[in-house]
């Protein structure tokens, strides 16, 4: 029978008053794919960081391949055959694949012999595991799916037998994700052990052999994947019954509130990212833009919100044109009723070192209600923040807490509360649930439907196809900068997937 690859006993880790991990027991069988799910803040990353030597547990024992192990640094983990593929890739953009794989494992002072050795080894790994990547390609030229392969190759090159993948599909298209799963199965067949951290229940069901559920720092259940259901796992994760699909009534589309005509946008290198795109968004409807990340959605959002210069075309907001020179005043757009939940809440939508209350007015800080003569009205600002915290159930309910200390879902709620409470005419939303836990996703989706039902025009850009399908009244698919199709919400995943991959099916249109 298969032996145990990793065994954790009574692992606890506290950060001050917060128990990130409490008394965790976990047994991972060698040669299996083991999923770990849980909401943000459930302690998955902390647990894996302990396993990978970033943190030391306060108490508890780790055994690797049956032997007690003390993992004080990542290099100790690597020596024990544990490799990690991080959610945010740790690659040097302007190095080649080969150079990245070698980095930190060069072997000797002079590179020429070790390069040759590394190249042979890399080619062998690529062959054995179906991980084809050109060793001489620069990382910055590779699509994210291939960059992820490089991360996996890096771990294998260091002799990893146990591979930890942290939210690996967040940046992948459905097709790329499928390919990744094939690779993981291949790795499993070669006898490797894979630990997959994710919050996507579908992936757990599709690929894992066993699944462990974490909630609030504790390990609440371990199941054989074949013997559980999505519903059971969701309930275990959140601790209550969860609606996985939002219920919504028929939309009542009204006047055109946002109109985009023949919009063309280039990026800083002069590459056309948005190519002659036209669409309307009416009051009381959600228009979803589906597409694989990097097909011009970000640039489209930036052009509409006046942040990025457009080459040509027009954008009208409630009948008045939007300045497209890239010098548009975001404050003016807000005054005219455009609210914007940006794709990147960490760098754009929020200032993470700010207190929560300071972010609750970001972009609206010029409003009279926040000011008292020449000074900020600190009391009014905090009261306003507390009101939003209450209304949007933001936790912890502390408006003086640094924003970086909120979980992803709560950070997103801070942004949504700010933008929705302005009672905008048009709400532009990018990736509303990226890195957000299941419980918060349900809440966010509900609020977006509510906005629609209140007669707001909502433009939703998301790489999560499920999200687009369950929320949108109309779906536009972007590929290579163009809108390649429009579908109703009844469109199948396969149909949209083909459009997203650039395979146009004329006969299926409208």
């Amino acid at each position, binding site marked *: 029978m298969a032996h145990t690859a990793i065994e954790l006993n009574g692992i606890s880790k*506290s*950060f*001050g*008053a*917060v128990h*990130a991990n409490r008394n965790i027991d976990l047994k991972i069988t060698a040669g299996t794919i083991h999923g770990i799910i*849980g*909401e*943000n*803040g*459930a*302690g*998955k*990353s*902390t647990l894996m*960081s302990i396993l990978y030597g*970033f943190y030391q547990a306060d108490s508890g024992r780790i055994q690797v391949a049956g032997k007690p192990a003390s993992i004080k640094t990542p290099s100790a983990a690597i020596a024990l055959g544990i490799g990690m593929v*991080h*959610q945010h890739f740790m690659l040097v953009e302007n190095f080649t694949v080969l150079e990245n794989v070698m980095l930190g494992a060069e072997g000797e002072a002079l590179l020429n012999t070790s390069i040759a050795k590394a190249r042979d080894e890399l080619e062998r790994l690529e062959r054995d595991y179906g991980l084809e990547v050109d060793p001489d390609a620069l990382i910055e030229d590779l699509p994210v799916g291939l960059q992820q392969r490089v991360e996996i190759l890096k771990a294998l090159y260091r002799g990893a037998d146990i591979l930890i993948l*942290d*939210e690996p599909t967040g940046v992948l298209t459905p097709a790329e994700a499928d390919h990744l799963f094939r690779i993981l199965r291949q790795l499993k067949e070669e006898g490797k052990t894979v630990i997959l*951290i994710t919050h996507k229940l579908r992936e757990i069901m599709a690929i894992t052999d066993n699944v462990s559920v974490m909630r609030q720092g504790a390990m609440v259940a371990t199941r054989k994947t074949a013997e559980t259901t999505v519903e059971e796992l969701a309930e275990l994760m959140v601790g209550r019954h969860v609606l996985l699909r939002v219920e919504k009534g028929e939309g009542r589309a009204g006047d055109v509130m946002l109109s985009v005509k023949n919009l063309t946008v280039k990026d800083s290198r002069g590459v056309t990212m948005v190519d002659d795109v036209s669409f309307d968004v009416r009051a009381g409807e959600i228009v979803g833009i589906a597409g694989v990340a990097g097909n011009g959605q970000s640039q489209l959002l930036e052009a509409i919100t006046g*942040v990025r210069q457009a080459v040509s075309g027009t954008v009208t907001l409630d009948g008045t044109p939007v300045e497209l020179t890239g010098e548009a*005043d*975001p*404050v003016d757009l*807000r005054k005219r009723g455009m609210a*914007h939940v*940006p794709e*990147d809440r*960490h*760098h*754009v*939508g*929020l*200032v*993470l*070192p*700010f207190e929560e209350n*300071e972010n609750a007015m*970001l*972009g609206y*800080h*010029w409003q009279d209600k*926040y*000011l008292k003569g*020449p*000074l*900020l009205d*600190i009391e009014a600002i905090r009261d306003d923040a507390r009101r939003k915290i209450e209304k949007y159930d933001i936790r912890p309910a502390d408006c003086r807490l*640094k924003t*970086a*200390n*909120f*979980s*992803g879902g709560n*950070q997103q709620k801070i942004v949504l509360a700010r933008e929705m409470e302005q009672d905008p005419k048009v709400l532009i939303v990018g990736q509303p649930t*990226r*890195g957000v*836990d299941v419980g918060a996703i349900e809440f966010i989706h509900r609020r977006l439907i509510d906005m629609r039902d209140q007669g707001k025009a909502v433009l939703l850009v998301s790489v999560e196809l499920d999200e687009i399908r369950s929320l949108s009244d109309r779906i536009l698919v972007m590929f290579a900068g163009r809108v390649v199709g429009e579908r109703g919400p009844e469109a199948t995943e396969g149909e949209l997937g083909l459009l997203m991959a650039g395979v146009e099916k004329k006969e299926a249109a409208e």
Partner: protein
Amino acid sequence: MSAPYAKLPAWADYGLIPLINLAVAFLVAGLVVMLVGENPIRAAAILVEGALGRGQNIAYTLYYATSFIFTGLAVAVAFHCSLFNIGGEGQAYVGGLGVALVCLAFDSVLPWWLVFPLAIAGAALFGAAWAFIPAYFQAKRGSHIVITTIMFNFIAASLMVYLLVNVLKPAGSQAPQTRTFLEGGQLPKLNFVLEALGFSVRSAPFNLSFLLALLAAFLVWVLIWRTRLGYEIRMRGFSPKAARYAGVSETKIIIIAMLISGALAGMMALNPVMGDQNRLQMDFVTGAGFVGIAVALMGRSHPAGIVPAAILFGMLYQGGAELAFEMPNISRDMIVIIQGLVILFAGALENMFRPSVQALFASLSPQAAGVEARQGEGG
């Protein structure tokens, strides 16, 4: 990955860690003193005695601290906008020109209390103007402010030499300096305050601009944490993208932050020019612009930290002068070494002892160490 450090209580963060850094800086400085063959303990005693031993010494310490408060605040305001203004030296130098022009024009017609506000305006205006050029290039052309402000220090020095030698020097004088200001261009001394407290001060340049410095520190706090402008400055300092999203013009905010920074640096000139020497002379800034960087780093860009840090550096300056006098083996450059060590440990290596202090706190009392473990995505 998550933030590697757990949070510390505020008193440890703002009090204990700077003190540890300082202690290490002095420890290493002590080794240097041993190297030159003197007793470090005696040297430390002389230094402290020289800085605080008598009313006279305290007055000098506070006189130096006054300059450092201004330049420290100048660096801090720019820091909050994530701009590294190394040009405090030049801005202060040119600020002195503003002070001198006001004093030369009005010292015979107006009393000092009417000249003083004009001189403040002159100092701030000239300092800000000198900061404006690098700020404009940074905002519009992306020229790095560190490079341009350093270069403008040299340009300021050359410009001032030219002006002092060719324009401002009274006819027939051999010294490159302006004429001495009349009563209207002289700030009253504050030595009587120390005397009222029972210290004896013979004569020291400690003057009214010290109170102005304290007022400036308070106003900078109001500006940064209590005004919309300060909010926008911090926003751009933490995240330029978020500032753009929020409708804060990057060009505008960079220029405004640098103008305020330059004005504060310029106001430093009031202290030596109007408060002490009563004339504009060459190189009156004597490094205060650079000390301001250390002061801002040590004070963690907060006025409540900058004032004590400035006083500490005032002690180093004053005590160091006494030390150089008492111990011939130790030159004034020794003080520069200690300063450098303080900058190294309080600024560049600010976080060196943090992990161990945090580990210590965490092990002593888990409740006190606060929470900052998991954040953002992927939990």
